[in-house]
């Protein structure tokens, strides 16, 4: 079953840079789909289309369709100008490349999304805190100091907090934009193994920070080059037996 269907998506920024050229792909539910390729390929842009975070950027032209399915297979048109984007962002969580914790306590970082949505039941908020920290493999490290400023955590902990924060309001999709680019190998390993657990509950779209990470994590992989999607398929196919010459060169490290 497909969670996200992207059809003929093109996007041009107001400075004239064409960021996505006629991209089409279907992202299956409960998988990790990896968008990889050299910088400037349009991977981050595509992520930010899915939760409409591109609304904050200067996008002049966007065409095509992005559809998000719910559990009853009802599709929402993500690009609909009338869409309730706040509701969309509660269905699609996001983790950024740098761990950006809000200037609040650990606890309040996690409950922020829920509280903004109007949830103020203390019990339910606390449940969400524990559940999301468990899912991000951070609970044991911070359970005794939830009221400390989140900025006191180490970089790796902060990034797992950001992951937990996006899980706290139980979205359907999680977008991760190079979530481990600033982390040490141990923290990276923790995040990657969390993702393997999380895909049972969520649909994950990941922009990895290296080809190796792409190969380790991908159920499905899409190779992006200068705004074009060159190739898309199951991870084994793409990383072991790619069809396109350019994909092969990139994976083998001949450019990038």
């Amino acid at each position, binding site marked *: 079953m497909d969670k996200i269907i992207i059809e003929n998506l093109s996007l041009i920024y107001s400075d004239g840079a064409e960021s996505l050229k006629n991209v089409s792909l279907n992202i299956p539910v409960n998988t990790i789909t990896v968008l990889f390729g050299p910088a400037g390929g349009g991977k981050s842009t595509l992520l930010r289309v899915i939760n409409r975070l591109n609304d904050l950027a200067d996008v002049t032209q966007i065409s095509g369709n992005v559809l998000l399915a719910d559990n009853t297979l009802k599709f929402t048109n993500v690009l609909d100008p009338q869409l309730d984007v706040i509701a969309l962002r509660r269905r699609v969580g996001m983790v950024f490349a740098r761990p950006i*914790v*809000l200037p609040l306590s650990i606890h309040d970082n996690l409950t922020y999304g829920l509280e903004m949505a109007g949830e103020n039941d203390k019990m339910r908020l606390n449940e969400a805190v524990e559940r999301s920290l468990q899912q991000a493999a951070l609970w044991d490290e911070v359970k005794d100091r939830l009221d400390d400023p989140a900025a006191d955590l180490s970089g790796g902990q902060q990034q797992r907090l950001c992951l937990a924060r996006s899980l706290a309001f139980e979205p359907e999709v999680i977008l991760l934009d190079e979530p481990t680019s600033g982390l040490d190998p141990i923290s990276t390993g923790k995040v990657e193994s969390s993702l393997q657990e999380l895909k049972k509950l969520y649909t994950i779209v990941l922009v990895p920070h290296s080809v190796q990470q792409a190969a380790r994590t991908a159920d499905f992989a899409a190779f992006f080059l200068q705004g074009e999607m060159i190739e898309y398929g199951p991870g084994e196919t793409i990383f072991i037996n790619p069809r396109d010459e350019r994909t092969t060169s990139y994976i083998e490290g001949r450019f990038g």
Partner: protein
Amino acid sequence: MIREFLSKPSSRYSIQRLGFVMLTLIAVITVVPIIAIIVHIFMQGMAAISWEFLTSFPRDGMQAGGIFPAIVGTFFLTLGTAILSIPISIGAAIYLAEYAPDNRWTRAIRIAIINLAGIPSVVYGLFGLGLFVIFLNIGTSIFAGCLTLSIMTLPIFISTSEGALKSVPHSFRVVSISLGATRWQTIRRIVLPQALPGILTGVILGLERAVGETAPILFTAAAFFLPQLPNSPFDPTMALPYHLFVISTQVPGMPIDMQYGTALVLLTFIIGMNILATIIRSRARARRQW
């Protein structure tokens, strides 16, 4: 020749030393007048300071007694100005920093604010006289004085508040929005609390200017001498800067220590506010998390 001279290490070091000495000297020179003024006023004015001076009315054609009504007047003028201008300027700053698109209209607003900051204070005084005292028929009063001082302090408040809001990292806003917060929730919960110390510092520095100004209240609020305290915001009042002007230039035979005593009280007001601003700023910096 010159190149040879410059490339000799020993001469380059002596040039550096010379430059360093010059810069230190210049830095010292800028501090000297401030310290001189404070010390001078303190030495001359300390003799006049007494409980009676601070808490009683002027007597004997102002040549004796105290400056109590002027202290009270300045306090209420400052308070009123703060109450009137803080909400307006924070609102304007939020609009400019968070919502305003970059177009001709908002550029015009910004230019207007910058120009407002450059207008001489006596012009504000005349404007206040024309608009508030006469046209709106408020009369010479604390209220009219506060309105005039508010317009004068608005540009300082708005530009420092806007600066404080813009210094909050953009990434906080992006993250907050990505978590499903609205723009207003983002401002209310994240941006404003982080910017508040900066805003408060600006507000205090702006109010300092309002405390010390004579010209804007000259035609709108201040009285030469009043035998009682104002009863309402619609009464005129005595005020420290104007009182200082009066006893220094308008009253013959004033004891000099009373003039300096008044200046000392005014200066203490301003230095006190400055210290408050510094404390707020340094506390906030210690708490800041980016």
